[in-house]
């Protein structure tokens, strides 16, 4: 029952982000004279410094934030599961070497790594894309780097979890039985072992998703992530925070982005909690 409510709310946020900007009477970058207007019937959540409708921008930003979260988490899922499967199943020296690499990467400050990645390759990727048939992607080079970068720093924990699981699963009789009936290694990995780690991977996904969304917001808040004219929950929050001053406080510009971000993260974390409980 609780899970259903959580899923429903999450579905609502996702659906609103997808449909909202299309059906809204305002557009994302439509500037008006109604600057910093408080919430009203015309602008349900008020407007920002340039008179843009906050609700429309929030829903639009949701697209970016959720997309970065989803793609980032998927990248980390793919890399982490593959890495953990290989290290755990082969064992021995290959496993030793692979896990020491994970230890080293763990020791590096991960967000700094993403920042370095973005600053180093942002321009290079842009010029690289410009010359090819992918030139339409060039303006979004930074977003692409965000996808990859956030995914590549989030996989470490998953690789460790999967490896530990595989180490014990591969010794179970049904895997031994598959080996001595002559089943090929890829089939053993996909058919016998992967389905056993799937519940843990699913649980981890609900934790990785909010983690990546939060990291994206953090980077965008610092001005290193998503760039104007694109918006994400992080940049909207940053815009709102910049407007805070003791004389005049447009509270809606900070409150609503923060509310949407935290409730999404909380829902995902609660879902993860529910999945971790033993099934009846």
């Amino acid at each position, binding site marked *: 029952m609780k899970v259903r409510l959580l899923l429903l709310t999450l579905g609502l946020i996702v659906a609103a982000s997808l449909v909202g900007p299309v059906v809204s009477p305002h557009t994302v970058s439509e500037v008006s004279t109604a600057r910093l207007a408080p919430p009203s019937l015309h602008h349900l959540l008020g407007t920002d410094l340039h008179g843009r409708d906050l609700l429309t921008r929030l829903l639009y930003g949701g697209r970016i934030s959720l997309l970065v979260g989803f793609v980032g988490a998927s990248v980390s899922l793919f890399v982490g599961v593959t890495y953990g499967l290989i290290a755990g199943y082969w064992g021995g020296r290959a496993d030793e070497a692979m896990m020491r690499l994970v230890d080293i990467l763990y020791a590096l400050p991960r967000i700094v790594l993403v920042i370095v990645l973005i600053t180093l390759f942002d321009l290079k990727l842009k010029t690289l894309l410009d010359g090819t048939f992918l030139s339409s992607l060039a303006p979004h080079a930074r977003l692409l780097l965000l996808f990859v970068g956030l995914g590549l720093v989030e996989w470490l924990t998953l690789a460790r979890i999967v490896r530990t699981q595989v180490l014990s699963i591969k010794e*179970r*009789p*049904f895997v*031994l*039985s*598959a*080996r*001595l*009936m*002559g*089943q090929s290694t890829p089939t053993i990995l996909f*058919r*016998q072992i992967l*389905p*056993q780690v799937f519940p843990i991977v699913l649980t981890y996904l609900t934790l990785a998703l909010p983690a990546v969304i939060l990291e994206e917001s953090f980077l965008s808040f610092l001005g290193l992530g998503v760039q104007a004219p694109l918006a994400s929950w992080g940049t909207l929050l940053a815009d709102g925070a910049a407007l805070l001053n003791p004389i005049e406080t447009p509270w809606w510009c900070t409150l609503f982005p923060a509310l949407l971000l935290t409730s999404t993260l909380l829902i995902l974390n609660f879902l993860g909690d529910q999945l971790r409980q033993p099934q009846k």
Partner: protein
Amino acid sequence: MSPLVDIHHLSVHFPVKSGLLQRPTGVVKALDNVSLKIEKGSTLGLVGESGSGKTTLGRVIVRLVDPTAGSVSYQGERISALSGSSLRPYRKKIQMVFQDPYNSLNPRLRIGTILAEPLEIHFPRMSASDRSDRVSELLRLVGLDPTHARRFPHEFSGGQRQRIGIARALAVEPEFIICDEPVSALDVSVQAQIVNLLMDLQEKFNLTYLFIAHDLAVVEHVSDQIAVLEHGKLVEEGSSEQITTQPTHPYTQRLLASIPSID
């Protein structure tokens, strides 16, 4: 006539590593210079305490563990030296039944799929309908209902799962089955049923068994020959009757004395 399985001066040593650098500091001799022969159609019982090397011996024969020294021959072919595709024909001839019925079946696959897997590998040209007929036949053979093919492992009791494990081993029409403590995880009443099933199947298909157990009473019932292992060494070998009535080695005598009786 040469024996079906000929185990020749077989040793398996595992290095013991310790310390920060994981340097090898010694070896565990899981098997130490063991020689055994198994005749076609017979059952060799292998007894010994936990850690005596019984399971390792079974695993060397099916090549889950590589020998340190010595060899295993099957019908005269040294299978301990084969690898990759040359091993494949023997994957069909030699099968194994495992101890733990709760972990020997993939919990996420239906029984029908579990039993069809070995068929897909060793009879690739079998049609889907032939395969499902064969699965039904296998289930009947081990005393289960063919409709059980649609169920998942968790819907079965320990004894029923062990029957499914036996059906999976039989699927490829093997000649030699290694039973690694097939009944020690089961209730006593179920143990007898499984032992009798194994003996019926042996008669029906002229199977050869290596029957591994720590319980001499069970082994005595099924075996023609009995071999006793202690700390990786073969301490005594002989006919079932000889070992159980006139054991010569003190270790065998201790094992026999440890069988509980109702007096």
